């Protein structure tokens, strides 16, 4: 060590000792409305889980804001002509946070563990990957051999986060290290877990030695505060503690924050759709006329312009998937007379129609939408029951047809950048019984179309199938298309780098953010 370096490190120690690093540290404090369920890469499932995981772990590849796959641990990849073999070449300099190199064996270990535990993203690979599907060509090359053609396979690879096998194995215990990885991180991510009070906060800090390096003005610490309470968000912002909001604040809160002068609004269209999912297997939404009536009795303009900002959604697939979107299907219209006519044709005509509107308890805009629906539906002779349930309760009642309410407000965004993500998870009978498939479509034709699209590597063919599928689903009307989400954040003027990514919450990968103030 040269004298010069020694001096520098002494200075660093001095900083730590005096506990005055504030001027040197860039801290981003962000609120998030749901708790972090898990940080185990084999278990992460929802939007919030991924928010932590993309920062703590790296995958072989990642996704950019246009939905393109970009290198991460893998510097390149080759797909075989029949799309059944994919070979990744791992970066020479790729290393885990403990300094050890990332190798093919780590990838194999991560995937086999994921398949064994069979939770979280494992469902993406059901029937596609089996134990032994992934093999090491050499220490830095890994080959995936698919059990069958699965067109969107490559787009699902970013969901696989690579574990440091050497670090995990000693802690495997009897449960495949599920206990250990519930609170420990062993990956190659740009950030390390510093503290985590489940349900209250999580703090991660930057690994200065991250193999990919950082942009100018990197974010040193990210601090998530879990609160959906608008008053708390505002007072955090007012006291200077908050750097960026979640994307679920009310318009009033955004306005209040912008009025403070320190914040700017960042809005972007996304591939996330917001639906009223209609349970097609219970009364009264088992009747196509009632479902059509609901679509006609929805005041889209008020919802999109006043309650929750968003763009037009005219099919189950948002326009963000431009190549696959069926533009022939007309935009839904608010038409109470038309709704009346549809009800008259239904088997429930002539008597008061009981109907249950479900939404996530505590979300202001969902309650407003629910009230708006109720006031319109009551004019049409419905007898409305509101059912506000906490999110975990919704995931539970979605498990059975009988407990799923007739109408449910659900956001669904692509979990990987492929239309398959939108269709399979929501409409395929194999994915039935989750919050994403509260329609209970269970239609063999729909299943067949989704499977057909998966089985072909030809994009044009896929587009054709998906457009047909949209037309078919629009005929069945299992959903009311409320809007495509315009994601909004109030962000500190100094913070840049948010670009919506059509995959989970990959847009919160903080290596993509910069602090532009000195």
């Amino acid at each position, binding site marked *: 060590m040269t004298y010069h370096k020694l001096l520098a490190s002494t200075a660093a120690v001095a900083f730590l000792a005096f506990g005055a690093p504030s001027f040197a540290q860039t801290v981003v404090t962000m609120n998030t409305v749901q708790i972090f369920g898990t940080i185990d890469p084999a278990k992460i499932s929802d939007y919030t889980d991924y928010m932590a995981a993309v920062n703590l772990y790296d995958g072989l590849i990642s996704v950019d804001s246009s939905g393109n796959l970009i290198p991460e641990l893998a510097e390149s990849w080759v797909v075989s002509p029949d799309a059944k073999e994919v070979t990744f070449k791992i970066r020479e300099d790729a290393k885990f946070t403990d300094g050890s190199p990332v190798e093919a064996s780590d990838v194999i270990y991560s995937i086999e563990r994921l398949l064994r535990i069979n939770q979280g993203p494992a469902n993406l690979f059901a029937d596609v990957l089996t134990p032994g599907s992934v093999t090491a060509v050499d220490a830095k090359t890994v080959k995936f051999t698919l059990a069958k053609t699965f067109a969107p396979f490559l787009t699902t690879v970013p969901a696989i986060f690579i574990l440091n096998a050497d670090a995990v194995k000693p802690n495997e215990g009897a449960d495949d290290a599920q206990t250990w990885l519930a609170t420990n991180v062993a990956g190659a991510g740009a950030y390390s877990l510093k503290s985590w009070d489940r349900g209250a906060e999580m703090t991660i800090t930057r690994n200065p030695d991250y193999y990919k390096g950082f942009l100018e003005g990197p974010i040193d610490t990210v601090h998530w505060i879990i609160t959906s309470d608008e008053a708390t968000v505002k007072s955090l912002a007012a006291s200077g503690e908050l750097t960026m909001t979640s994307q679920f604040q009310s318009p*009033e809160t955004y306005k209040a924050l912008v009025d403070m002068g320190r914040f700017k609004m960042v809005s972007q269209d996304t591939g996330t759709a917001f639906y009223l999912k209609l349970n097609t297997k219970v009364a009264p939404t088992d009747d196509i006329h009632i479902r059509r009536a609901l679509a006609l009795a929805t005041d889209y303009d008020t919802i999109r312009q006043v309650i929750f900002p968003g763009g037009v959604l005219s099919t189950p697939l948002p326009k963000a998937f431009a190549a696959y979107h069926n533009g022939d299907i007309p935009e839904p219209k608010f038409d109470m007379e038309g709704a009346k006519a549809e009800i008259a044709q239904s088997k429930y005509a002539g008597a008061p129609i009981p109907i249950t509107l479900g939404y996530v308890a505590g979300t202001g805009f969902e309650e407003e939408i629910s009230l*708006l629906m109720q006031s319109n539906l009551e004019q049409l002779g419905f007898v409305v029951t509101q059912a506000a349930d906490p999110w975990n309760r919704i995931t539970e009642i979605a498990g059975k047809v009988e407990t799923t309410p007739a109408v449910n407000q659900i956001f669904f965004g692509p979990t990987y950048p492929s239309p398959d993500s939108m269709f399979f998870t929501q409409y395929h009978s194999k994915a039935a019984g989750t919050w994403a498939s509260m329609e209970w479509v269970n239609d063999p034709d729909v299943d067949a179309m989704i499977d057909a699209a998966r089985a072909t590597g030809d994009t044009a063919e896929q587009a054709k199938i998906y457009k047909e599928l949209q037309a078919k689903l629009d005929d069945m009307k299992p959903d009311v298309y409320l809007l495509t989400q315009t994601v909004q954040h109030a962000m500190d003027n100094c913070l840049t780098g948010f670009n919506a990514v059509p995959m989970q919450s990959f847009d919160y990968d903080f290596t993509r953010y910069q602090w532009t103030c000195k």
Partner: protein
Amino acid sequence: MTETTPDLMLSNAYQNWYRFSRNPTAMIGLVIVVLCVTAAILAPYITPFPDHVGAVTNFRARHLPPSAVNWFGTDNVGRDIFTRVIFGLRISLLLAVVVLGIAIPTGTILGMAAGYFGGWTEIIIMRITDVALAIPPLVMALAVAAVLSPDLLHSMLAIASLWWTWHTRMIYSITRQLRTQEFIEAAETLGASKFHILFREILPNCVSAIAVKTSLDCGFVILVGAALSFLGLGIQPPTPDLGTMVAQGASFLPDFWWESVLPGCAILFLALGFNLLGDGLRDLFDVEDVR
């Protein structure tokens, strides 16, 4: 100085009313309670927008500040807050009536039984009371509401399932004092039935304490209920509920302050009324120990 007849034997009722009416806090309490109860009962007739109780939305009129038309302003979907506050009183009062309707008879009977019979009856009842006292009613209601479903009935039952203990304790200590008094002993000697002694001799002597406690408790039950709905375990929308209104309005603080502050003040006002009334009754009946 006035020349008054030194008649010390003022009629009881007059004396009571005199003491009560000279107690300004008690009178204010009485007026508030009467006002709130009347308003709640007559809500459909006296509120400007009775249909705003339900799912009426008027997004053009959302977040309007208090005005001559909307005395308390409008909420986030454009409903008149004053109307909803008045209807919200109904839920609060209903909660108090149901909880105390269960808690008072239960607490009184158990308290009298424990105090009068003593022995194992006393031990069992009072130990159960001790256990129940160790659980905060709010926590119990939260647990039950979450375990069953967030529904007003469950919350009420949960609160009632603990609230009786306070009445039991109070009635128990009064009964214990009464048990040794001559008129009870006399009744026993004359062969009065236990039922007669409990309900005809002891109960009348507890009435004033019960009255005071009931009034004070109304206020506190309303506060617990409001806290529950504030935490999201109240009645399902769109039925107006004061605690829920505060919680929702809180999202819009401080710009649209009226949406949470005014319903919050309504809870305060109602609880204040019952408390002042209870205080006044306590002075009137001279039952200092009742809280």
